[in-house]
């Protein structure tokens, strides 16, 4: 195997040497309109002192082929500043990119700005951010590479105000999935979690990315249903020239890999490709009636025999992490001036984790009888070993056809993910039950997202003043929890010998069970935007109007079985789950004894729900002074929610319209330029946004969830939340990507929705509108080259700090539950923080990037403050996630004759910190809810561009 890899590398090296040796050099790039954050079409690009030149196309792109030499390029457009870039040095065959932003001159005098090429290295993302109407933070692929993040969830953490919960779910400004929206190329995508609306961002590999944009203030052209932010994943665009790349990576963690006691389950032949080949399919047809053994023993034993017999977690050797990706892109000229381009990417990632000491799901309670007892009492202790393997495959194919005035794109994306997690836990129960339990847990989750984006962009009138853009972006997402298996044995210890025996006792530890849980969602979003550039008050202005329609359908279903027995001694299984379904143990009607299958799920555990949003908007962006831009807009949205489902008592809703809301959402943005070069700005923004009940929340659902063992109860009275948002930000853009910003925000919520526990019914939850809530905070961001220190020219300090405070009212049940369980001397605050909100977020680090020697490196620190993870219910205290101090170090070296090979090395969790959540209660010592050590990992990667 090793020699094969070596052979392959040699082959690749040979290919890489055979690159083109064309003598002419190429300069290409994009001209951006700094006033409207749009491309500048038909701008003039001239090589100074010559007649050689070109104009940008309707997308702002240009390309010049020049003989080697040193040039000055001049970029100009009527009514705009002219920019000259000096010191453009071209060596034979070199291809460079020069992106330029032009701002309107405002006055009739032409303004000339001259800068050198090296100082014009402002990244496209930063320029987009600078020129954006809305308040947004961008993350370019370059900066993601610098942090060494392999998926979007870990990359997006470095954006100010963004935190990630559980490595998957993004919170912006302390606001979680209800208030934070994830979009793909600006369009809605399905969520992949029964309890959440947003998608897990760890599903998206960075390989498919152009950049990530986090929009924090609303404008009329954005959907109204976000408050914290929109995380927009922008997939790779078509390259201007032929680009092929290959990269390989390996990751090693001494705690996880090459462990002989790693825990797994029998694999299907296709697990390594992120899906199950049918091994874990439910063998029982949905309409199959399962009789009692006393009714029809023959049928029940036949049905029982249909199930796979593997119920025990297996020990096996763990392998190390690996990843592989291949990309290809090119652009061809078709006909006279038409261009056809494509980009394709396939990536594969396989990661393994193993925790030999994994504590999770412990329960501690307050002493209900004695309020002077501050100690938390152990109700359930749970710890054991856990193994996890995650396979992620993604494929992206983008094609673009461009004529002089139109562009059509079709992007196809498929993400396939298979994750198996297996564990052996010991449970010690003390209060609700009193026993010891051993559990083998086997899980497999198969996720898939498919998206097809069809879009077009057309420009009309002279200079492309009228632009029409449309997008149609259907997606289909599935999440199949396939054959989750739990086999609980009660552990009995002989008091004299200490010897353990294992029995299955339904009323103590539950029956052996397995379940399948399916969620399928399709989204059909479409939108059209029309932009017209015109003059207002003698200055450049822009009118935008548009419409959008989004239809979503979600279908959810749980099928749950358990395996009780009759006249059977479970102690003879010896505590081995694999023995339970052995043939001799399966129910035999002749002896009326053995293990049989029983269906535990019901029709009330499923639903089918639709939502639709129909929207239209108008906005006007204009200047009243050269230094002051005003953007006013209003958006109209009509939201409908239609539900089909059944209550436990059999009452049903069939395609019943539950919500029908029509609202106007106004927004106003003011941007003040503090200097004529527009490098310093103050932005202020007001907008009204909404947060709507999700599919099952405004419903009559009574759904038992086998993972949490909680029952979810819908609320037909539930209303959307409306939020008023105010933002202020000061920004200063320096040369070479230097950047400083300080911002403040305030959000006021009317009737915020929160999932609340029901005090009189333990383990049942329902969404409620809870009075009012407020969130406010500040963010500070600094990116500074340390070129003022000799020898540190290539080092950059990158830091951002966010401070967020939230105040949420309690539900009546929660307040009473808290009051009843106050300790002596403890008082109850009027409000508490929002679940999932961190009081502070810090990112700090240094990056090093040298064009000359090809070395690139970074040392980064990330921490998120103590976060309310689980809202306590009655005598169960609140659970907080403690800060995880992560220090990462990356180093890479680009080498090879044409600098097309890169070798990279990164170290994660250098401080070897634990991931820890604790119960906290007045006067009490913290008690563990969960704890594990992610270990320290080393990754090695190689990539080749050709």
């Amino acid at each position, binding site marked *: 195997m090793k020699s094969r890899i070596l052979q392959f590398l040699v082959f690749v090296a040979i290919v890489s040497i055979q690159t083109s040796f064309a003598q002419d050099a190429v300069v290409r790039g994009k001209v951006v309109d700094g006033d409207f954050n749009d491309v500048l079409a038909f701008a003039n690009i001239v090589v100074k002192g010559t007649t050689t030149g070109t104009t940008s196309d309707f997308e702002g792109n240009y390309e010049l082929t020049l003989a080697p030499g040193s040039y000055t390029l001049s970029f100009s457009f009527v009514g705009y500043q002219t920019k000259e870039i000096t010191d453009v040095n071209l060596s034979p065959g070199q291809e460079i990119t020069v992106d330029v932003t032009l701002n309107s001159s405002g006055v009739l005098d032409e303004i000339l700005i001259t800068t050198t090429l090296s100082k014009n290295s402002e990244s496209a993302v930063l320029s987009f951010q600078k020129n954006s109407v809305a308040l947004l933070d961008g993350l370019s692929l370059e900066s993601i590479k610098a942090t060494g993040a392999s998926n979007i969830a870990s990359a997006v953490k470095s954006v100010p105000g963004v935190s990630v919960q559980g490595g998957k779910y993004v919170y912006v400004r302390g606001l979680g999935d209800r208030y934070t929206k994830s979009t793909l190329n600006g369009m809605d995508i399905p969520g992949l979690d029964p309890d959440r609306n947003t998608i897990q961002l760890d599903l998206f590999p960075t390989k498919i990315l152009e950049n990530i944009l986090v929009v924090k203030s609303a404008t009329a052209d954005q959907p109204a249903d976000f408050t914290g932010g929109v995380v927009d994943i922008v997939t790779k665009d078509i390259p201007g020239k032929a680009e092929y790349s290959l990269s390989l990576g390996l990751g090693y963690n001494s705690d996880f890999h090459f462990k002989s006691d790693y825990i797994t389950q029998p694999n299907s032949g296709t697990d390594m490709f992120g*899906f199950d080949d049918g091994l874990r*399919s*439910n063998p029982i*047809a*949905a*309409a199959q009636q*399962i*009789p*009692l053994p*006393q*009714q029809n023993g023959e*049928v029940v034993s036949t049905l029982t025999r249909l199930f796979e017999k593997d119920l025990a977690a297996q020990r096996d050797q763990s392998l190390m992490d690996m990843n592989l990706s291949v990309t290809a892109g090119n652009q061809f000229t078709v006909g006279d001036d038409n261009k056809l381009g494509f980009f394709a990417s396939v990536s594969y990632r396989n990661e393994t984790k193993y925790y030999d*000491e994994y504590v999770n799901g*412990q329960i501690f309670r307050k002493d209900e009888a004695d309020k002077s007892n501050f*100690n938390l009492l*152990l109700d359930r*202790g749970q710890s054991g070993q856990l193994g996890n393997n995650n396979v992620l495959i993604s494929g992206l194919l983008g094609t673009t056809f461009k004529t002089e005035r139109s562009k059509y794109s079709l992007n*196809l994306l*498929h993400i396939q993910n298979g994750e198996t997690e297996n564990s052996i836990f*010991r449970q*010690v129960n*003390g209060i609700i*039950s*009193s026993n010891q339990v051993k559990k083998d847990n086997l899980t497999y989750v198969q996720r*898939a997202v498919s998206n*097809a984006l*069809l879009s077009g962009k057309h420009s009309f009138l002279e200079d492309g003043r009228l632009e029409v853009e449309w997008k*149609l972006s*259907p997606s289909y997402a599935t999440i199949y929890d396939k054959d989750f298996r739990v086999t*609980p044995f009660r552990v009995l210890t002989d*008091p004299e010998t200490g010897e353990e025996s294992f029995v299955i*006792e*339904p*009323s103590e*530890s539950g*029956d052996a069970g397995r379940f399948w849980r399916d969620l399928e969602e399709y989204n*059909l979003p*479409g939108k059209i935007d029309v932009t017209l550039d015109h003059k207002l008050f003698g200055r450049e202005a822009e009118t935008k109007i548009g419409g959008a*329609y989004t239809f979503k359908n979600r279908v959810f279903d749980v*099928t749950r079985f*358990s395996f*009780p027995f*009759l*006249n059977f001694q479970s102690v003879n299984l010896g505590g081995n789950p694999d023995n339970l379904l052995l043939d001799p143990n399966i129910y035999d009607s002749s002896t*009326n004894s053995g293990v049989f299958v029983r*269906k*535990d799920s*019901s029709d009330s555990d499923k639903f089918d729900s639709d939502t639709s949003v129909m929207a239209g908007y108008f906005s006007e962006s204009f200047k009243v002074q050269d230094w002051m831009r005003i953007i006013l807009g209003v958006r109209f949205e009509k939201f409908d929610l239609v539900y089909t489902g059944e209550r*436990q*008592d*059999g009452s049903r809703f069939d395609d019943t319209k539950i919500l029908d809301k029509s609202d106007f959402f106004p927004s106003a943005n003011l941007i003040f330029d503090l200097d004529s070069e527009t490098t310093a700005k103050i932005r202020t923004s007001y907008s009204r946004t909404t947060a709507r009940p999700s599919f099952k929340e405004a419903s009559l659902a*009574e759904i*038992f969830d086998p993972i949490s*063992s909680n029952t979810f109860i819908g609320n037909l009275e539930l209303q959307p939340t409306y939020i008023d948002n105010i933002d202020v930000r000061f920004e200063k853009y320096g040369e070479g990507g230097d950047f400083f910003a300080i911002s403040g925000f305030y959000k006021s919520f009317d009737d915020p929705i929160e999932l609340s526990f029901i005090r*009189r*019914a*333990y383990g*049942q939850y*329902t969404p409620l509108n809870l009075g009012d809530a407020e969130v406010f905070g500040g963010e500070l961001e600094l990116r500074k080259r340390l070129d003022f220190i000799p020898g540190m020219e290539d080092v950059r300090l990158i830091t951002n700090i966010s401070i967020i405070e939230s105040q949420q009212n309690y539900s009546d049940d929660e307040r009473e539950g808290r009051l*009843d369980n106050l300790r002596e001397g403890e008082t109850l605050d009027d409000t508490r923080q929002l679940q999932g909100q961190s009081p502070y977020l810090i990112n700090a680090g240094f990056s090093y990037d040298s064009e000359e020697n090809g070395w690139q490196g970074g040392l980064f620190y990330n921490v998120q403050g103590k976060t309310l993870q689980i809202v306590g219910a009655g005598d169960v205290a609140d659970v907080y996630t403690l800060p995880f101090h992560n220090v990462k170090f990356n180093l890479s070296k680009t080498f090879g004759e044409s600098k097309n090979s890169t070798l990279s090395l990164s170290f994660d969790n250098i401080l070897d910190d634990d991931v820890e959540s604790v119960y906290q209660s007045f006067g009490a010592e913290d008690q563990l809810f969960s704890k594990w050590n992610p270990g320290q990992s080393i990754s090695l990667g190689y990539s080749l561009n050709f």
Partner: protein
Amino acid sequence: MKKFQLLSLLLIVLLSACNNDDGGTIIPVDDDPDPVNNVLTGEITSDFTLTSDIIWELSGRVTVTSGATLTIEPGTIIKALPGTGANASTLIIARGAKINAVGTAAEPIIFTSIADNIGVGQTAGSNLTENDRGLWGGLLVLGKARASLSGDAVENQIEGIPASDSNGLYGGTNDADNSGMLSFISIRHGGALIGEGNEINGLTLGAVGSGTMISNIEVVANVDDGIEWFGGAVNCSNLLVWAQGDDGLDIDEAYSGTINNAAVVLGDISDHGLEIDGPAGSLEGQFTINNLTMFGNMNTEGGEYADYRDNAMGNTQNVYATGFKASSDVELDNNGVAQQFLDGKLTFSNWVINLPDGVGAANEIFVEKVACIANCDDGDPNNDVFEDKIIVNPSFTERAANWASAGTSGGADLSAFSWTYASSKGAL
């Protein structure tokens, strides 16, 4: 909009050919049960009578709602459909509703499974035994008496019923509340699962008031407890539990009534004879168990006499226990309940034990246990820190000599149970 959706769907289909392949072929089930004439489903909102001339089928959660009375004639047979969780077949007498189910020794009212081949006019079928458990749910009576609830709440939702169904509430302030009459009733083969590791009891009494009459009740082959009281003040007499999966009689939330003349016959998988918990809120209440006989079982893994836990308070007197294992005990679970004993709120008198081989004296089965208070959950049993025992000089076991003696008679008047299914099967 339709065209738009069609176009989009087409794109999706092109893109994704991944579907879920669950489910095999359907095997026909020939389960042809006895013909039944009447099916009970949903809510019974006005007075209704079940007659003994036909077999009644109980399908799913059937609730008699406030203001309605369900009358059941002597000799009536109710067969329940199988199902667990939301599908479990249960009969709930909600707060404010009444049940008037008075059988006779010759014609008891029988709740059993659809799988039972018992016919009209019979008192037992022939195809099921005491080991056929969990074939349906159970009978729940919910009242408005006081219960000691967590956080001193006045009412609570009974386990297994979603909070959106207010018929699942129990508790109030009227200890004299009247939920009707239950007499000569046999509840067999129930105990369906209603939550993780949580099954329904044969007879659940949630805050049932003292105006209710409960006597001559038999629960056979229930997965969970035979009879469980959640608070309330109702007095009960002549109760028999046989071959339950968990505990025989289970008391919680400061039940303050009297149980007179009861028998628990452990089966092959039974746990405790008695499981007694204390108040969950600040409301206190003492139960009385008077004249109790417990028959042990040598096959079961558990099979303890009794477990007093969680600040339990009450009086257990005139008890006879026989046939238990040498390792079986009567335990005070932790310091909390031991303190109730020291304070005189938990008392014992006149326990006669038919000594198992290896037990020297009757008081030896009474033990004080202590709870783990530190390092309990780190997987290492060697470093656990426990409470100190608080009943010392003399110890709980030593003091038990005051009420425990060896013998072969005492406890309940078993002749009261001659009408029962258990008696006909020779379990007594």
